[in-house]
């Protein structure tokens, strides 16, 4: 395949082509879904091929992608990519340009402890069926599911600067949920929340202690039916790591994607309140807040040797001591902003156009355990397990609801509340952060489902976080 992709690069060489790159992916996928303890869906695909060819001609990118890797298809894609660039340049004011990078090459293969594609299928099904049976409808539980998705992707990348990359990774997404009803209302609980994916094989189910938590989610979903709602206007909240990963994702991650500054995502995903003039000055959060993008950490789904336009993996400080320092960027936008490209251009599959994407976006750990943080909180709520999320198209005004909130009184958990909802304005919220737990609580929380771009792509990515506390947050939403 290396020879094939390099031959395509050679065939793309032409006097009018200032840059070109080619990606080829082969993807294995398997999904197992038990609903109410019955197998509702088992689906798989093996070695799904995809190829994408991108050329820069006359300052405009053209792209063509397909599932067909035949020589005839590749000739057609080269023709289409060139035509798209040439025609696109007719509706352009500013020619797209960026500096050359030195050629680099690399190979990487991640090997999971328990390869989900090599382990016996019966073993996988048995495990999930046992899990599904443990949470099947009974008592107040009226609906449940237990599921796993497994993905293995092999990717080849080459560009006209001579860079080459070959990478094989395996990711797993385990999940389970119960719905409780008292006939008037329903309440739900998931485990371990919505950021449950990982760079791992089947061992992720064991690492995330699924079997140990079936009783807990059944009990909590049932208890939520008779739980109070938050009545205060404002409260101190501690956000659990799984939900904080999503808070980070929505209000810092997407907000610091530099393509949004220039409106490249307006038509679907939106823009950002961040402006180039804020870099190095803007007080995004409190002094204890340090946020970085790190595509060099192999524990996260965002790890790579180089991104999908040949920029080697990097760790970049996005927010340092609360100040906005940098952006997640492409080569073109980094050049426009006078920055170094951050190695954040990614596409879900080879036949997708690369976009500025989060890789491993992390909050640096602070100090202390979650237990100590709760103990140091006089009154407030510990919120975790995302239920609803929403943020405006400037990534400024957000509102989140979690499945459950745990009341804190005099440093102790004293009860639960249902559907706790908080809202805020991004910089005000992050400036209200006064404590972040330490290394012992810090972990990656990952998703398969970050949507962006048109045609739409869903990206696999990770957030490294530890629970954190935010003071005096709006928790009263009138309806």
């Amino acid at each position, binding site marked *: 395949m290396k020879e094939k992709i390099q031959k395509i690069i050679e065939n793309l060489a032409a006097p009018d082509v200032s840059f070109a790159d080619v990606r080829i992916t082969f993807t294995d996928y398997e999904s197992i879904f038990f609903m109410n303890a*019955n*197998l509702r869906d088992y689906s798989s695909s093996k070695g799904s*091929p995809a190829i994408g060819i991108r050329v820069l001609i006359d300052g405009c990118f053209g792209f063509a*992608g397909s599932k067909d890797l035949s020589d005839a298809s590749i000739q057609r894609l080269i023709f289409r990519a060139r035509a798209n660039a040439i025609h696109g340049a*007719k509706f352009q004011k500013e020619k797209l340009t960026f500096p050359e990078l030195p050629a680099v090459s690399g190979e990487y293969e991640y090997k999971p402890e328990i390869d989900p594609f090599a382990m016996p299928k019966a073993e996988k*099904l048995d495990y999930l069926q046992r899990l599904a049976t443990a949470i099947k409808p009974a008592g107040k539980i009226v609906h449940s599911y237990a599921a796993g998705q497994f993905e293995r992707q092999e990717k080849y990348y080459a560009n006209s600067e001579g860079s080459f990359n070959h990478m094989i990774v395996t990711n797993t997404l385990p999940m389970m949920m119960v719905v409780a009803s008292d006939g008037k209302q329903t309440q739900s609980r998931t485990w371990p929340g919505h950021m449950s994916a990982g760079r791992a094989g089947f061992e992720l189910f064991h690492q995330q202690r699924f079997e140990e938590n079936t009783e807990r989610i059944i009990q909590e979903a049932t208890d939520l039916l008779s739980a109070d709602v938050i009545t205060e206007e404002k409260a101190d909240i501690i956000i659990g790591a799984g939900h904080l990963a999503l808070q980070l994702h929505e209000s810092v991650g997407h907000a610091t994607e530099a393509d949004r500054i220039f409106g490249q995502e307006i*038509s679907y995903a939106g823009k950002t309140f961040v402006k180039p003039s804020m870099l190095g000055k803007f007080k995004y959060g409190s002094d204890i807040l340090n946020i970085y993008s790190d595509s060099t950490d192999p524990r996260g789904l965002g790890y790579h040797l180089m991104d999908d336009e040949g920029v080697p993996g990097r760790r970049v400080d996005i927010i340092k001591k609360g100040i906005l320092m940098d952006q997640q960027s492409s080569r073109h936008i980094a050049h426009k902003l006078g920055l170094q490209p951050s190695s954040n251009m990614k596409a879900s599959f080879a036949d997708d156009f690369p976009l500025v994407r989060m890789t491993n976006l992390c909050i640096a750990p602070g100090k202390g355990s979650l237990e100590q943080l709760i103990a140091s909180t006089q009154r407030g709520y510990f919120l975790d397990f995302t239920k609803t999320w929403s943020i405006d*198209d400037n990534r400024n005004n957000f509102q989140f609801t979690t499945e459950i909130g745990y009341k804190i009184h005099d440093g102790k958990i004293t009860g639960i509340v249902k559907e706790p909802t908080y809202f805020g304005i991004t910089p005000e919220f992050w400036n209200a952060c006064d404590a972040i737990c330490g290394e012992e609580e810090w972990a990656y929380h990952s998703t398969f489902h970050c949507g962006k771009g048109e045609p739409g792509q869903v990206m696999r990515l990770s957030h490294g976080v530890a629970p954190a506390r935010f003071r005096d947050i709006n928790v009263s939403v009138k*309806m």
Partner: protein
Amino acid sequence: MNEQLKYLQSALQKNPELKYTLVLNLWQTDFLRFYQSQTNYNISKDSSSLNATLYKGKKSCSFNIDHPDHPKIDAALAAALEMIDAMPEDPDFVDIEDDLTLAEPRQIVNNIEAFSLDKKTRFLNDLATRAAQYDFELYGTFICNYQRYHLLNSNGLDKTSTLSPIYLEVKAVHKDSQVTVLQTFGADDFKHFDEAAFGESLLRKIVLGQNPVVDVQPGEYEVILAPRCVAEFAQYLSFGMRAQAVDSHNSFFEGKVDQKLFPAMFSLTDDPADPRMIRMDYGDQGHIYRPLKLIEGGYFRAFMCGQYFHHKLGLPKNGNLGVCLKVDCGAAKLPDMIASVKKGLYISSLHYMNFINARETSLTGLTRDGTFLIEDGKITKVVNNLRFTERISRIFENLIELEDTAQTIPFSGNYAEFSVSSAKAPHARVKGFNISSSTRTI
């Protein structure tokens, strides 16, 4: 019939104990994306895939093959046959689709070829020049898809369909204030595309976007919801009209068939036959897709239900998907609707809605692409985007009046697989719409 589909069907016929559903999907798109009145990127993309679900009694498994060929089909089928006996049963499964009704044949033009890339860039260049006179720049997408699929199953179902949706979304954004207004076009035929009218409508909105920008306080407002908002609220409301929602105890409509839930002016139909919509021939299991009254004169009438949940829940089967929703028009004229608002809001578009509690239809979301203040019956100012937290059922309960004409609104399915669908709705005047916070940004 496609050769690969035929090959797989032949192989399956050697296993008479199996039932099966096969779908061959050939898809292509041409996708022009623009920002700051210039091309962002320009994409051509195609795919072919063969999806199979095999059933042995109450056991089943599925596989998908991208760019299928004989060796891939042989390997996938062998793996499926080897594993199907080990699959746990689904006691709720009874049978695969058995509706053999064929849709009326339609002539579908490949719209990728009907409106060339040159023509697209020329149209956008002209529009950009006109918008620039007001210091607005254009952002958006111009998409044409072409899709052919062939669905067959062991119950004798054998159906093909072709779709070629058009999706044009143009956002005009002021260079300094960032005030944004939106104009869209969606259809499956370019004969409905009036370039001049599209441009004129966008420019009228641009003129409104030059008003001063203000914030408004949270609270309840009388609002004029643009057709896009009405359509999107109807889509969210329709989640509870799906049999799956009943099955998962998340339906607002459970146990409410033939109950009056909304004002008599509110009627909602899933209408795949309307020629001004992006039409559909079949549901995803191949059931004929026909108009279905969901809300009629305020009464809830029917759940959308396919084969599986028909057997499991005993609901009538119709194969509807809710991707062609149409809200009936009322009798009001838009200028009169605006004129009747003493102090309120005109909301053009919605953003990032998500249910808080689907069974209660409670959700939160934001306004986008043009929110305006109405004072003494006139649009006077642009308002920063606003957050609302509402029950959709309450929004439709609070309808005051509906416009006498409807617009087709295209929606792109951008989250997972890329698809284009449409809905149709008129403007609506609604009382007591709950604005829960201000974003402080346009």
